[in-house]
């Protein structure tokens, strides 16, 4: 069962199945880690985005909720991510002014959007808009 784990409330509300984490980006990662330990598989990289932890108050990870023994790839990724977030200064959502908060939430949502669509997690399943400027869609290599 695909599921989003996030501390980004706005994103959480637009998703069909999500666990909202009322806490920091690190809290999200730790929560994901617990799920991985009990068998869930990570579907999106827990460090997506190109910002340091001190610039990333929101984190969102899509998992496939399963039980069983831990998946090594998922485990390596989440442990690495937790270590990186633990050794950095964190930025808490409540420390930010509204404008910055909106920017950060926006980037987080944008980074997840494509993946949420792929795993059919967006509510009311808005059709993905054409992200290319000029060429026809037939050029795209579609993935199922």
């Amino acid at each position: 069962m695909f599921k989003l784990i996030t501390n980004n409330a706005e994103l959480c509300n637009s998703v069909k199945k999500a666990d909202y984490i009322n806490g920091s980006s690190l809290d999200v990662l730790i929560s994901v880690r617990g799920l991985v330990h009990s068998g869930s598989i990570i579907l999106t990289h827990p460090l997506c985005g190109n910002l340091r932890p001190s610039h990333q108050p929101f984190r969102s990870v899509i998992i496939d909720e399963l039980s069983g023994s831990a998946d090594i790839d998922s485990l390596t990724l989440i442990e690495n991510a937790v270590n990186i977030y633990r050794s950095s200064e964190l930025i808490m959502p409540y420390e930010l002014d509204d404008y910055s908060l909106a920017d950060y939430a926006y980037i987080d949502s944008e980074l997840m959007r494509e993946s949420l669509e792929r795993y059919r997690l967006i509510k009311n399943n808005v059709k993905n808009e054409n992200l290319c400027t000029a060429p026809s869609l037939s050029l795209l290599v579609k993935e199922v």
Partner: protein
Amino acid sequence: MCTIVPISQTVGANRIVPTIAIPHPLGNPSKTPEEEKILRRSLVERALKALQTEITEQTVFTE
């Protein structure tokens, strides 16, 4: 005795016994305490067997 065998291999363990899960390597909370202890005993016996086996390279003991 570890759950994630590849990690033990990477860090250089020589006799490796795979276990149940990260938060409970030698147990399984979904079983009754009696069943759980039988499971644990079989894993520990496997570890003892591993200790009594001559090896020349990293070896995973699955039975």
